[in-house]
């Protein structure tokens, strides 16, 4: 046994030596202890890399947006339209005996509208929301012009002041003692919301989409005496919530790459790249150079990202985006920004050099981010603009020569 213990010890010592940590990197001393090859960078500007581009609006619709836009800006007016689900106007009081009795039901004594302020321009003071009563079954395809007549003094329900210090948060407002609902409306209430302030401004309210808080309409009912200590609250969310704008958004003009806004627009660029750029992982930097055609839109002093992603399959405007967010490029855009914009495309060019990305089209989609949750928009000159159109600057490593032996 002792002999084998010795052998085990020897084996352990052998194993311990074999398990030593390695550190083999030495500082190079050229030329004696440097490899014969050199990493050489090349930088090139591809002025005709964009061989075709287009822009389409309508990826996130108004009714799908996370916000409801109210605006009285000169450049954009917007009204919020909300149709709430059917609300019960009768409360059946359950007595202590367990019997249900309608004899004690009183009328609603207050109506509360809960809104969630998502975004506003804090530089504009004296903000007020004007709440109007709309026809219960207003046309959900209505235009700004066709719905505007309903925003009249005769239909004004309440005026809701917003504190100048409130940037974002809940706005519970008692808007009326009661709302008369015609029998034909079957309990459906629709409201319109407009904004006024000391200056021209815009604000966003939560729509209930994409995780935001929806407007909620609540009625408070007390039972008749002597049971008037009993009360009941009925709350409903919207069945329709949208907003209408003036001027109405249209398809981007030809030759312009439009991104963002609502309904949101995206642009697609088809690239033609030299083999040395695509068929290797040698790209260390790739920058898509774009030129804006006008100031970026959006809330005052707001910002958003422009995101570039490759596509899995080319179906034009409905192309399927590559789902891996690491294969992308982005750049931050500020409201009012003009001039050139540089967007990093190196991860996408490298992706096209992999076995996964090799068979995918050389097509990228530009879009605003977060799409459907921002008002921001920007337009860039397309390829028809010539020197002002998209250009691609690529820095890559020339093929490395290892040499033999």
């Amino acid at each position, binding site marked *: 046994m002792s*002999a084998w213990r010795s052998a085990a010890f020897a084996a352990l010592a052998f194993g311990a030596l074999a398990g030593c940590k390695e550190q083999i990197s030495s500082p190079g001393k050229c030329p004696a202890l440097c490899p014969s090859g050199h990493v050489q960078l090349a930088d090139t500007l591809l002025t005709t890399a964009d061989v075709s581009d287009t822009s389409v609006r309508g990826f996130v619709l108004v009714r799908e947006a996370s916000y409801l836009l109210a605006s009285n800006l000169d450049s954009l007016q917007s009204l919020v339209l909300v149709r709430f689900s059917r609300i019960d106007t009768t409360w059946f009081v359950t007595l202590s005996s367990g019997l249900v009795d309608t004899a004690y039901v009183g009328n609603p004594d207050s109506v509360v509208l809960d809104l969630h302020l998502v975004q506003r321009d804090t530089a504009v003071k004296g903000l007020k929301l004007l709440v109007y009563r709309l026809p219960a079954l207003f046309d959900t395809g209505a235009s700004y012009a066709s719905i505007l007549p309903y925003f009249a003094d005769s239909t004004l329900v309440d005026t809701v002041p917003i504190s100048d210090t409130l940037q974002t948060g809940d706005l519970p407002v008692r808007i009326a003692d009661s709302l008369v609902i015609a029998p034909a409306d079957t309990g459906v209430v629709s409201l319109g919301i407009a904004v006024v302030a000391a200056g021209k401004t815009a604000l966003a309210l939560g729509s209930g989409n994409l995780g935001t808080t929806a407007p909620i309409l609540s009625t408070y009912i007390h039972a008749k005496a002597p049971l008037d200590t009993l009360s009941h609250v009925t709350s409903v969310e919207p069945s329709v919530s949208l907003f209408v704008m003036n001027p109405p958004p249209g398809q981007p003009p030809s030759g312009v790459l439009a991104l963002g806004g609502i309904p949101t627009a995206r642009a697609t660029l088809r690239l033609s790249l030299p083999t040395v750029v695509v068929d290797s992982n040698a790209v260390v930097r790739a920058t898509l150079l774009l030129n804006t055609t006008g100031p970026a839109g959006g809330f005052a002093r707001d910002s958003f990202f422009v995101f570039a992603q490759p596509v899995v399959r080319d179906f034009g405007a409905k192309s399927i985006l590559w789902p891996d967010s690491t294969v992308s490029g982005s750049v931050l855009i500020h409201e009012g920004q003009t001039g050139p914009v540089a967007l990093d495309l190196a991860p996408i060019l490298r992706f096209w050099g992999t076995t996964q990305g090799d068979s995918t089209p050389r097509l990228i989609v530009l879009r605003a981010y977060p799409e459907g949750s921002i008002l921001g928009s920007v337009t860039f000159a397309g390829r028809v603009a010539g020197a002002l159109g998209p250009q691609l600057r690529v820095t890559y490593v020339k093929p490395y020569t290892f040499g033999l032996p």
Partner: protein
Amino acid sequence: MTPRPLCLAAAAALAFASRAPAQDSVFGIRGLGFPDRSVSAASAGTGGGFALFDGAAVLNPAALSTWHGTAGWAVAAGSNRSFDNGSGSTSLSATRFPVLGVAGQIGPRIVVGVTVADYLDRNWAVSQADTVSPRGTPVAAQDQTTSVGGVSDIRLAMAYRLQAVVLGVGLHALTGSAQTTVIRTFPSDSAFLPFAQHQVTSYRGVGLSLGALATPARSLLFAATVRFNGSLRASSPDSALTVGMPVEASGGVTFQPVQGLLLSGTVGYASWSSASSALASSGEGPARNVWSVGAGVDVTQLHLIGRPLALRLGYRWRQLPFAVDSGPSWLTEHAVAGGIGFEAAGGRATVDVTVEAGSRAARSLSESFVTAYVGLTIRP
């Protein structure tokens, strides 16, 4: 030894060797790599003086005759090195497995064996800092070039015992590959992505070694060996290079003045200049013919806790064949070593431990090293 255990042991040795990393010196970046010393831990303890008489080393096929019965052996070597490039130094460490082998006796006169040994080490990594301005603005860049692999020497050898002479012959296959990777990184806050590219170079070659041991007197033993190598073919996916390999010759003597004391010395020569023309064609510096010398003493009459204990001391010196620059500057290495060896498992196993310290230098470039060898020999 029956064929089955021999085959199993050989298979195990080969499997183990395929996983074995090796690293001897950053100077392996030059020429064909860093020439390895495929000696056992016991031979290393005597400065290589006994290597021509050591059945566990791969220099002399006739030395296989020192095995009686079946044996398997392996050596692990861990080294710590301090490299100085003239303007700064850095500490490095690595582990390698210089030699693995099995041998068995077939009849009273013949011993056959298979060994797998390091021959040329191509494990190295160098880093360089640079500043580049691909877009007009300077940006720092760090290049790291790493090579992992090397050339192994697989030998099938036989020793034949005559009266006072033992003859040996060995067939060598040089095989292996090295993966070279270059990585350029930029500061994390820069807009540049890292770059990496790699190439695998494979190596093939053959060789034949002849050796002899002669005992003219009871206390005197001579050894001689010569090895003829064919060309080494290095090939990558898009190119190939054929490199002439050296003829290697060595001679040695062991003298036993008194019982339990062995003195030994070895001298070797290799005509590496045969590789010069091929290396020059690929932009490498020249190669030269080199000498090596080793001498040591082995005291075998000591005991520790009732067991025999061998005590070894040695010194070695050698020239290295590949120029480190176009000067050319040549590298020379020397080292002192000491070690012990003892038996375990009732005499069925031997453990040898050696520590070697030395240095190698060429002009302002120098590297000092301390290497610990642990050898395990099993005789089932």
